[in-house]
């Protein structure tokens, strides 16, 4: 996907966000009393700036598209980054239920496998050792209680 196309998509998305945010901001009182700006005043300014700049980006994208005269090209799905984010999401979702130690070991192993599948076996012990060390280091060393299940 070319940059002008990306700019157009970003501009439209941000314009929608800006308008939505502006509408919500207009519901807030924008004047506390005569001449005194209220809670809605600043968000209204930000919404205005956002819509204005999105429009400028849209114009930039459209001019860039015309100048480059290029086709949009194929959109390739970023499978690996999305997989990683989902993996992260799964860890965060399970964390309150299973605790840090239980969840972080498979999480660590999963990322290890993704980042260096060829040397995974060589460093597999690290997937257990490092989360355990981190857990006790933060709990006993820095007095930061990480989530844990009651039976552990």
């Amino acid at each position: 996907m070319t940059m002008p196309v990306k700019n157009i998509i970003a501009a439209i998305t941000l314009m929608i966000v800006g308008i939505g945010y502006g509408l919500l901001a207009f519901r807030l009182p924008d004047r506390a009393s005569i001449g005194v700006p209220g809670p809605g005043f600043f968000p209204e300014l930000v919404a205005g700036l956002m819509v204005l700049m999105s429009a400028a980006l849209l114009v930039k994208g459209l001019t860039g598209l015309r100048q480059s005269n290029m086709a949009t090209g194929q959109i390739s799905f970023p499978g690996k980054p999305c997989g990683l984010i989902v993996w992260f999401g799964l860890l965060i979702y399970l964390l309150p239920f299973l605790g840090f130690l239980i969840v972080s070991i498979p999480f660590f192993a999963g990322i290890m496998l993704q980042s260096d599948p060829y040397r995974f076996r060589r460093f597999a012990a690290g997937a257990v050792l490092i989360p355990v060390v981190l857990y006790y280091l933060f709990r006993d060393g820095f007095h930061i209680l990480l989530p844990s299940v009651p039976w552990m």
Partner: protein
Amino acid sequence: MDDVALGFFQAAQISSLIATAAGVLLGLVVGMIPGMTISTGIIIVLPMTFTMDPNISIALLLGLYVAGMTGGSFSAILLNIPGTPSASATALDGFPMANRGEKGRALGIAIVASFVGGLFSFGCLYLISPFLASVALDFQAPDLFALVFFGLTVICSFAARSLVKGLLSMAIGLLIVSIGQDPIMGTARFTFGDTNLLSGIHFLTAMIGLFAIPQLVENICGQSEISAPSVKSQEFGRVFPSWGDLKRMLVPMMIGSPIGSFLGVLPGAGGPIAAFISYDYAKKANKSPDQFGTGIPEGIAAPESANNAVTGGALIPMMTLGIPGDPVTAILIGALLVHGLAPGPLLFIERADFAYGLIFSFFWANIFNLILALAGIGVLIKVLSTPRALMMPTIAILCVIGSYALRNSFFDVWVMLGFGVLGLVMRWINMPVVPLLLALVLGRPLEEHLRISLTSSQGDLMIFFQSPFSLFFLGLAALSVIWSVFLEPRRERARQAKRTQHI
């Protein structure tokens, strides 16, 4: 005892010195690993500092900041891969010198030049900060608004290739910062009834997501390499520069140190710009400029002294005005706020001992940086061959711990992941993250000072044009925007010409 002496003793306590030395070691390691930035390094260490004494915590983080700059030059010299963007100019002469078999000489020059640059910026920090803080005490709400506004616009102008994208990034940051209770009346805004959102979004959580997650994804998904070929320490030979080299380094360091310190003060300018400008000036001042790029000491000393001088320069607006000059100082502000310390002119009045302690910790960080880098270079470069299979998941887990430990909240961890996704999308559309980040730090004071000013003037905008300070900062803000508007087409043409040359 006066505050300067108190600050000195605080920074010279054994616990603070150990923390500084540990920070320096971590910084050297983080800096030299290509694909790891100093910001990521500080984010990783941050959760460990939450329960520490503020003096110790800031000493550790400052050590990491200072040494990270030097560490970046190691991989630039040895592998021609700059560990940090600031070390890019060092590679121009550092790598050819190392390639000639003078690895130790090149590293020694870089370490000593870093020390001189850092020490010069310490002098600036020590002399300018109290003075600037006393001037800033006279600032009224309109002046403070103009100052914060200038800080934000200058970031948009410098940090972004496109002013429109920079301003949009800033607008997103301001939008996010307006979530929660408003700073004057405490009215809940955009919370949708969720109590987690009442206190707003903690910007350290946002920073972890914005910086660490996209970098992690890029490294894991193979878009950038984090591990590099190992280098044998036996190949170094003598590391400390010879008397002849020291004499040759003198003029470039005299050029690089003031340039770095000055550009460090300017928000958004940063290490890479300072390093390249110093390199250019050192080249112009040299009798044989054609030698630059072939591996001469002058070509290493100028950028290295400049990029380390940036660190002290960047701390000046952070400490005296509460304006971060780069992502690292923004994170440092966050770290101070966690300990209940608000950087700004009042820091020198209410907690002058801490302010001077911070300044002297910066001094010690430079001393340790010189000693540990010279003594430990042989061991430190072994880090370059650390398996990424262990490094990447450790960073990922530390991101989760960091965002959770801030307020013991799972909500913050989700927020961190959300910002990670936002950071990835912003990279995809080439939108800079730094204006968003600074808007998260400066958004609240911006709104506060704007509303206080307008309240006191009954809505009359002329209040911003009555004080000389306010006029000065608003003028600078306008200049930075105009400069960027004029510069952007030129930059675009230069990029297109470069692209055409490549084709």
